[in-house]
């Protein structure tokens, strides 16, 4: 007996989610590295960077404040956030490049491209959530941020942005070396740039939320959350459109 028509779409999405989760579980070394990388990035700088005073700008409800904090309190958290972006972005990238032919066969057999991509998005969002929680176990007791919930939000949002960017680059540039180098450059430059140039990179709102969460007494939150959600939605729409084109079936 075939699956009834109304349930078919949901059934396909759930089966795809289950199978992609199984594949992911069986690649537990990669998954562990994705989870550990941000902590390793953070810890390696935290214990080496020193106490030099570093000026930083934070956004509060009363405007932009410039404060000076020890390098150990600012730089490692930013590096940790960069670690999340790299780890999640590269994982998302490989879920696309490694599966294009298989996904195309699934589409040929009856799947809709959005069902496969939807399942992948749900799975990667779950991974981004895990990656945003695990480093907090170390970050929060060590750096004692003023708003730990904002540090989590910044980590989760950067994870979501990285998921979308990873999926998009994976669809746009299917060659692994070239694609990973673009991701490294995009997140590396975007998160290390000071000043206004950083505004043009997708990780900017998450960076601002992170500093506001660690240092601001009265942090400005909503504009950065909206900014991040706008980037996530825009890149998601681009990825879905490009992905559907890549796995399309020609009918004559």
């Amino acid at each position: 007996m075939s699956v009834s028509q109304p349930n078919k779409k949901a059934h396909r999405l759930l089966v795809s989610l289950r199978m992609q989760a199984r594949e992911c579980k069986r690649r537990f070394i990669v998954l562990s590295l994705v989870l550990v990388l941000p902590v390793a990035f953070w810890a390696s700088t935290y214990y080496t960077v020193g106490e030099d005073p570093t000026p930083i700008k934070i956004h509060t409800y009363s405007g932009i404040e410039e404060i000076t904090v020890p390098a150990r309190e600012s730089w490692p958290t930013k590096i940790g956030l960069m670690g999340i972006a790299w780890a999640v972005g590269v994982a998302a990238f490989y879920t696309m490049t490694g599966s294009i032919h298989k996904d195309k066969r699934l589409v040929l057999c009856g799947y809709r491209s959005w069902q496969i991509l939807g399942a992948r998005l749900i799975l990667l969002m779950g991974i981004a959530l895990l990656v945003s929680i695990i480093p907090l176990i170390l970050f929060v007791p060590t750096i004692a941020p003023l708003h730990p919930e904002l540090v989590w939000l910044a980590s989760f949002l950067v994870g979501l942005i990285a998921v979308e960017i990873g999926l998009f680059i994976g669809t746009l540039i299917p060659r692994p070396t070239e694609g990973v180098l673009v991701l490294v450059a995009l997140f590396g430059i975007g998160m290390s740039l000071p000043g206004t140039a950083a505004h043009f990179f997708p990780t900017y709102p998450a960076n601002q939320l992170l500093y506001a969460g660690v240092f601001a007494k009265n942090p400005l939150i909503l504009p950065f959350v909206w900014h991040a959600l706008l980037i996530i939605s825009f890149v998601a729409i681009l990825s879905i459109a490009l992905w559907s084109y890549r796995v399309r079936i020609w009918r004559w």
Partner: protein
Amino acid sequence: MVLLKIKGIHKRFGRLKVLRGADLEIDSGEIVGITGENGSGKTTLLRIVVGLLHCDRGKVKIYKGFGYCPQAPIVFDSLTMEENIAYFSAAYGLSREEGMQRGKALMRKLRCDQHATKLVAHLSGGTIQKLNLIVSLLHDPDLLILDEPYQGFDYESYLSFWKLAKELKKDGKSIVVVSPMIHERRFLSSLYRLKEGRLVRESTK
């Protein structure tokens, strides 16, 4: 009853003209062989027929549901044979039970049911090729389009393949088999050679 009609397919890759007006018509209950030298365009033709590749000119009409078995196995390495069957069953809109029932019967026919719960990454090339073929047969299609389906099979499995092909033909299904070497000409309803971008009919004797 016509199941597949291909008319004037043209395809070029840069300056290289691979297909120059390939025509073919397949009726139900036929096994059609397509052969040709390496690089003659056999795989390109099949990829165009199933819709994986765009053609420059020409028409393809498939009148019923079809199954496609690609030349290089396209299955999920990190899943078991059973999980692959369940995944593709969902793609075809089959329930898990129906898909598994059919998958198990096909695994038995192709003599690989003992590997059902093994990860594809741990299987031999021949067994992966069998799974590749099983996936294309799961939904019991009227037309099967197979690109070198028995590549890597041992002799017993090769014979099992032809036995299965004969059973399908008896049930009124049609099969297109592409291979550079087709020895079992006696099983074919017709044989074509892809030569200079066109399909030329050859004797099956």
